[in-house]
């Protein structure tokens, strides 16, 4: 295919401008985190910190609840992801491969909850958790996300995948005397790595960003997740911008690292789920 050189130049020009705008917040975040307080308020702002100082990183890592909050985010995200992947693949397999009465009705009921905004259920759930004494604990943050839109999405993805697996595989296992559960664990799950990866990535990322639920259920600083803690950073003692930016850089690194390693899988599965749903 021939593409004339003028349009190629225009193309690269436009993409460079947009990419610069996209990268700007990241660059600004990193450079600010390395500036000393005097430089932050310097006019005009300077891009390159001089001297580069790492104090704010040490600050964040030592004096606040930052490490604890990061751990909270990671382990709550992991718990939600493991729970969703396990339960959604079980249900997805049943909806795809096990014929039983009422299957379609229940599946539709699950799917339909995807259109209920979380704001509707969070008010009764708050009262419910208060009755249980679970306010200001991590339990609501670990349990509620599994049984909502995220869980329904997981079931949907897993069901789509299991439907494509040839029936002969199950038939052969059945002749060998396998139970349903063994077929699921030993044949179906090992086959479904791409679908499991999709559900894992989406669930973890969604949970890592979750904001409204932590805001409502958590009060103690040491129990907060990173997004919530960062959003309340200002309240502590004015805004220490270089510390806030250091904390932001540290909070962004884990997801970005995962993204760069799983980029292909991530973008492809996203495109697939958008175009084939």
């Amino acid at each position, binding site marked *: 295919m021939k593409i004339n050189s003028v349009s190629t130049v225009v193309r690269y020009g436009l993409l460079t401008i947009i990419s610069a705008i996209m990268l700007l917040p990241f660059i600004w975040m990193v450079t600010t985190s390395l500036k000393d307080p005097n430089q932050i*308020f310097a006019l005009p702002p300077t891009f390159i910190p001089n001297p580069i100082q790492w104090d704010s990183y040490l600050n964040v890592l030592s004096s606040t609840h930052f490490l604890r909050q990061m751990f909270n985010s990671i382990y709550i995200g992991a718990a939600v992801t493991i729970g969703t992947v396990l339960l959604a693949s079980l249900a997805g397999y049943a909806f795809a491969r*096990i014929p039983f009465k009422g299957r379609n009705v*229940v599946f539709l009921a699950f799917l339909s909850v995807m259109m209920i905004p979380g704001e509707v259920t969070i008010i009764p759930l708050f009262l419910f958790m208060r009755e249980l004494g679970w306010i200001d604990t991590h339990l609501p943050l670990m349990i509620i996300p599994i*049984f909502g839109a995220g869980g329904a999405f997981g079931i949907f993805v897993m069901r789509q995948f299991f439907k494509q697996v040839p029936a002969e595989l199950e038939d052969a296992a059945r002749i060998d005397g396998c139970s349903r559960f063994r077929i*699921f664990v030993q044949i179906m799950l090992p086959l479904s790595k791409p679908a499991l990866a999709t559900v894992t990535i989406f669930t973890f990322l969604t949970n890592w960003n979750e904001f409204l639920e932590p805001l409502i259920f958590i009060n103690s600083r040491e129990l907060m997740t*990173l997004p919530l803690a960062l*959003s309340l950073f200002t309240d502590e003692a004015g805004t220490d911008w270089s510390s806030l930016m250091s904390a932001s850089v540290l909070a962004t690194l884990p997801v970005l690292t995962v*993204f760069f390693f799983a980029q292909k899988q991530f973008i492809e599965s996203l495109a697939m789920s958008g175009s084939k749903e």
Partner: protein
Amino acid sequence: MNADVQAEWRQKKKRPRKPMFKRDELAGWLFISPMLLGFTIFMFIPIGFAFYMSFTDWPLLGQSEFIGTANYQAIVQDPEFQKVMKNTVLFTAGLVPFNIILALGLALLLRHPLPGMGLFRTIVFVPVVTTLVVWAIVWRYMFATDFGFINSILAWFGIEPQAYLYNKNLAMPVVILTSVLKNVGLNMVLFLAALQMVPKNLYEAARIDGAGSWRQFKNITLPIISPTVFLATIITIIGAMKIFAQIFVMTKGGPESSTKVIVYYIWEKAFRLFDMGYASAAAFILFFVIFAFTLIQWWLRKRWVYNED
């Protein structure tokens, strides 16, 4: 094969397949039971309960009281709610076309496998995986009044510094702009996937007929990817109606309620003013609107499947 055998064959094919396992009926329910139980406790019952609450006066402490449709009537007449709905529509109407057009433009720029396109694609997509709160915090800082980066840049061009997030005419556009930049990569990926499905020979035929690139886009590309564009539009509308974290971080609904949107309003009523019944009614109004858009989405999806065959 004679007619009898054929008829028998057909009948055999029609007959439902015997269950593979005798106990499939039980196994099916067992496999879905954890999800079914969880959905019932944490989703279905709360939905019913929230619906009931929306017809009550429900304070955080003390006795609740059934008051019929009084909450709904009060909300519809609440000038603050009208403002909030106006803001939500304004945000959605500003964000969606901007997002879709930019995403489509980027997808068209990135579709040809020229060197470096993978890098550009990654750069545009990185904000999508970045924590929303971090994105909002950094942009709030860049739009800051005195030492803000944006003001300093604009000063080079002789533009007066503005208190962007403290100006009731400018705060909303700033939130829209930063939200578009955050999520445009998502729609771009969907459009890139759709563009790959356009048959290449159509373009060749069009070129032989002398069609320029704009006519090729208008008469070939756009009609073929239009179902994806419609779907992305609806999904983006639904997402835009639920904006919360950006508002919480960047403006707290201000200045003068100019960025107060529906979810912020619900949160404030329920968890700041503890008027749970009123907030539930507002949440159900949001649900009805989203429900309408979801129905449109399903309808479009059906049409799309039909088109594909």
